[in-house]
């Protein structure tokens, strides 16, 4: 069973940031409401059209359960007939796209709203501390592994050991991504960046330097996905969901079968087969860049290159503006924004590229885009392939 062409993204919305923070101390509910309204306006729809709601959040009311999807729906005045709060980390929103398309195809909803928001930067709520040492975390937290960076660092060290990958390779990714950010007025970091700058930035957890790690920012985003029938009446041209796949291989990096291969090997295969497109047909890719190593492992796992060849693949600024493999064109989690879970922003950028709305950073004639989300400690992945008429 395939969801190909059953549904289209017709609206996207987000909020402006100032130095990585939302304006005027806005709350996590306020920014999601603004993003939702902008996405619906973009689509030419109203909130009364929405009958499916998809929310993953790290926020909630303190107490039993966190219920972000229910609280947010109440705040927005939406009573859905289809609801999904799948929470698998940063890749949740790519999963939501597939789930929404399936629900639409099954006739369970027609107009789905996917939402995310975080004010983690304003709240200063992030640290490198692990989770409380209960259940499966009791075998991890007592040893002081920086969370989550230490797990990604272990994957990087293993890749370097097996394949001879160098810190310079990882730095290439940060530098190319910064060049895209310089073309995006909304990006948090826009100063020029060199490979030496990355290698000379403070070591956080070997072999990952500060500039190998994503930003810690606020942010909010929204997507509107509708049936093919409803897409005909929308304000913007549809961006079709051609294929989607999802998986998770482990929670703790201790249980990851091979630290050099993510479950994008599976979720990507599913998405490619469903879409019926080849790697060569992808015009622009958005790959989750929580850390530089995340990108390198994902490109290999998706089959853009062979295992171990990721370092060579991204060399010579191949993924930068003007390169033949445009990637993370908004400046990525490394330089644009990373509000805890970043997956929805990859989708928003892919839609804007396919619509030709990206101004200076527009990839010429982009028709098909691949979006990959990665969550946890390389734990979950979801891949969406999008295309325009």
């Amino acid at each position, binding site marked *: 069973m395939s969801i190909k062409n059953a549904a289209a993204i017709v609206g996207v919305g987000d909020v402006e940031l100032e130095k990585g923070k939302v304006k005027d101390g806005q709350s996590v509910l306020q920014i999601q409401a603004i993003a939702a309204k902008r996405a619906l306006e973009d689509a030419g729809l109203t909130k009364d059209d929405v009958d499916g709601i998809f929310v993953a959040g790290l926020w909630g009311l303190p107490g039993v359960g966190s219920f972000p999807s229910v609280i947010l729906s109440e705040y927005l005045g939406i009573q859905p007939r289809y609801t999904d709060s799948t929470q698998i980390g940063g890749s949740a929103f790519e999963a939501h796209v597939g789930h929404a398309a399936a629900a639409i195809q099954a006739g369970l909803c027609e107009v789905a709203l996917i939402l995310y928001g975080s004010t983690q930067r304003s709240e200063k709520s992030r*640290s*490198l*501390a*692990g989770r*409380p*040492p*209960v*259940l*499966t975390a*009791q*075998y*991890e*937290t*007592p*040893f*002081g*592994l*920086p*969370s989550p960076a*230490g797990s990604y*660092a*272990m*994957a990087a*060290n*293993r890749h370097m*050991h097996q394949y001879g990958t160098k810190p310079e390779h990882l730095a290439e990714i940060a530098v190319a991504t910064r060049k895209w950010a310089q073309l995006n007025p909304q990006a948090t970091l826009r100063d020029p960046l060199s490979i030496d700058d990355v290698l000379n930035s*403070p*070591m*956080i*957890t*070997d*072999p*990952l330097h500060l500039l190998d790690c994503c930003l810690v920012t606020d942010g909010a985003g929204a997507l509107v996905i509708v049936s093919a029938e409803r897409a005909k009446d929308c304000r913007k041209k549809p961006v079709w969901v051609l294929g989607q796949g999802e998986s998770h291989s482990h929670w*703790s*990096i*201790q*249980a990851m079968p091979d*630290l050099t291969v993510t479950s994008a090997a599976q979720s990507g295969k599913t998405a490619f087969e469903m879409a019926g497109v080849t790697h060569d047909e992808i015009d622009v890719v958005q790959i989750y860049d929580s850390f530089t190593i995340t990108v390198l492992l994902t490109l290999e796992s998706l089959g853009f290159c062979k295992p171990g060849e990721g370092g060579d693949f991204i060399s010579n600024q191949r993924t930068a503006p003007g390169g033949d493999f445009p990637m993370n064109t908004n400046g990525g989690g490394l330089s644009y924004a990373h509000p805890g879970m970043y997956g929805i922003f990859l989708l928003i950028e892919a839609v804007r590229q396919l619509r030709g709305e990206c101004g200076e950073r527009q990839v010429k004639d982009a028709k098909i885009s691949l979006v990959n989300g990665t969550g946890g400690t390389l734990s979950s992945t979801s891949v969406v392939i999008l295309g325009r008429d």
Partner: protein
Amino acid sequence: MAELKKPLPIPDGDSHVFWQGCKENKLLIQKCNDCSKHIFYPRILCPHCFSEKVEWVESTGKGKIYSYTIARRGGGPAFKDDAPYAVALIELDEGVRMFSNIINIDVEKVKCDLPVEVVFEEQEDFILPKFQPIFN
């Protein structure tokens, strides 16, 4: 200012035998009596074949470093004063992996595939399994 205490394991139905073993300087892992595979962390059933016939066995305590990182800033405030220190995934000879710290070594010399052995270290009321290089 309150002293920042390091997080210690909170034992449960899966783990209390493991932590008790550490107190007796034994590194206990599980083995499935149906598919013969070793298991870590401990579970009520085998994640390979779903058998409930899992039993505790003592590991040789020897293995090698599958991968590692050097925490330069510590994993949160309680570990800040210890930095830099090595956190590693140890692959035991029985084939399972576990987190630990590599001690009794210059952290700059920690590397993948380095042979290591368990050494038990007291931390408040707990004994944690740590690993050190095997010197031939």
